[in-house]
């Protein structure tokens, strides 16, 4: 009797982390698989989540030392865009769209530049001064650096 219950506990202890890991994979698809990328010349340092949100909602136009930023995003229905906005920014894609629309159609701000796919995103960020965007992983292309989001 005693031996059996001890065994049961052991198997529960073993399976708990596995179950947790399984659920984490299920509920956070691609967690940790989005990086904020920037043009190599942009002097911005690491970003807070708040700062990243302000850049991508187009409410902050420049880095602390005055470098203007230019924001690139993927279409609303792109899965990388959805993962990036949820995981990195903590916003649903439709919320971003609402903020941009509000600004664009009331004259109080602008919308970011939308590019077709991740490849074009990487190309545009590498070649546009002040550009920031995002990618699945560190791009194998020169002219780009990663901005850490703390």
């Amino acid at each position: 009797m005693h031996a059996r219950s001890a065994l049961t506990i052991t198997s529960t202890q073993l399976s708990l982390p596995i179950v947790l890991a399984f659920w984490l994979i299920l509920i956070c698809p691609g967690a940790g698989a989005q990086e904020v990328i920037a043009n190599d010349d942009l002097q911005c340092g690491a970003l807070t989540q708040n700062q990243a949100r302000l850049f991508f909602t187009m409410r902050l136009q420049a880095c602390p030392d005055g470098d203007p930023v230019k924001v690139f995003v993927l279409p609303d229905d792109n899965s990388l865009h959805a993962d990036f906005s949820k995981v990195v920014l903590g916003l649903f894609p439709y919320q971003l769209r609402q903020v941009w629309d509000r600004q664009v159609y009331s004259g109080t701000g602008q919308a970011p530049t939308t590019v077709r796919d991740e490849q074009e995103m990487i190309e545009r960020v590498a070649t546009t001064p002040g550009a920031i965007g995002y990618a699945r992983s560190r791009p194998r292309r020169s002219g780009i650096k990663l901005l850490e989001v703390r």
Partner: protein
Amino acid sequence: MRSPQALIVAALLLAAARPVPAADTGDWWDRLQVHGFASQALVHTSENRWFGDSPEVSYEFTEIGLNASWRVTPRLLLAGQVLVRRAGDMYDGTPALDYGLADITLISSPAKRLGLRLGRVKNQLGLYNETRDVPFTHPGIFLPQVVYFDRVRNLILSSDGAVVYGDLYSDAGNLSLTVGNGRSVIDENVEWAYLNNDFDGDVTPDTNTWLASLWYTTRNERLKLGLSWASVRIGFEPDAGSPFTVGPGTTDLDYGVASFQYNAADWTLSAEYAREPLKWRGYGPPIPDRDATGEGWYLQGTYRIRPDIGLMLRYEEGFANADDRSGRELEALSGGLIPRYAGFSKILTAGLRWDINPHWMVRVEYAYNDGTFILSARENPDLRDQKRYWNLFSAQVAFRF
């Protein structure tokens, strides 16, 4: 604009337009954006006229907008939009400047922002006023009418003046405050709504409009709470010698809205409560001096079955006078000329929206109405002909770029 004000504006623009030394992003056309939208609706009602000859089928609800914005520097944005709006007998589609402004950022950091908007600025009132004519930015073909009256939209739509805005971003959430003063851009619909007629003479704002709004949002912007307020006095200048007019009266109007919104992954819940204290003075016998408080509230849920398909359900109630919700006093006061159900509207609306792609959207909507408070007297001049219970069907197709 008087010269001291013009000088201040010029100085501010110059200050904001200072060239940015390092790494100015690209060419000027790179920082110019042009956007626009167009929509066409079909409207049918069982009774009463709403946006044209709706008891037949009305196509007289068209919205077209074209805007341009130029981020001259990180601290200066110039923006303007032209709006063409056809709305039954209320608007005939004459192009109008919707907004035209210079937005000057004085302070901008990850912790705060302070700035100034000069020119014709859309009033930040409630969740939807700023972009109320852009179909993509609000659920439903028609906004909740008890808060966002279409029969008298211009009084609170925008103002020519200045708005100061300040934002605070912190771990506890974001606070946003705007305070503005300017001249309201008003039209004949204002006279129809507040004097129930089109008398010989001119309606003009007697004072500048004061505006203020305070918003709190959580960091992830799931929860949004707001208070917004506007105050204005409109005056009537009768045509000399005209038999069909009233005295040189004034109407004082305040308009306050409390707003709530919660955004979840696939649903959004919104609710707003609006109060509108009104004072009529000095028009003479046909319009006795009196006070009333207009009131309206709604609860609206949207559910996104898929990212491109949304369902909307809304219930709203509005009253011409919060102290006379049954409208009986109104009926008695008018000697029976105004039926009591013109004093309220209770509306249940259901709608379906499909975003076909980022540029095209279609939606359909049904509303059951009890009461005629939201109807325009301009479209339904004989109030006794209005029917208390009526159905509204509408469909809309909208495009944007």
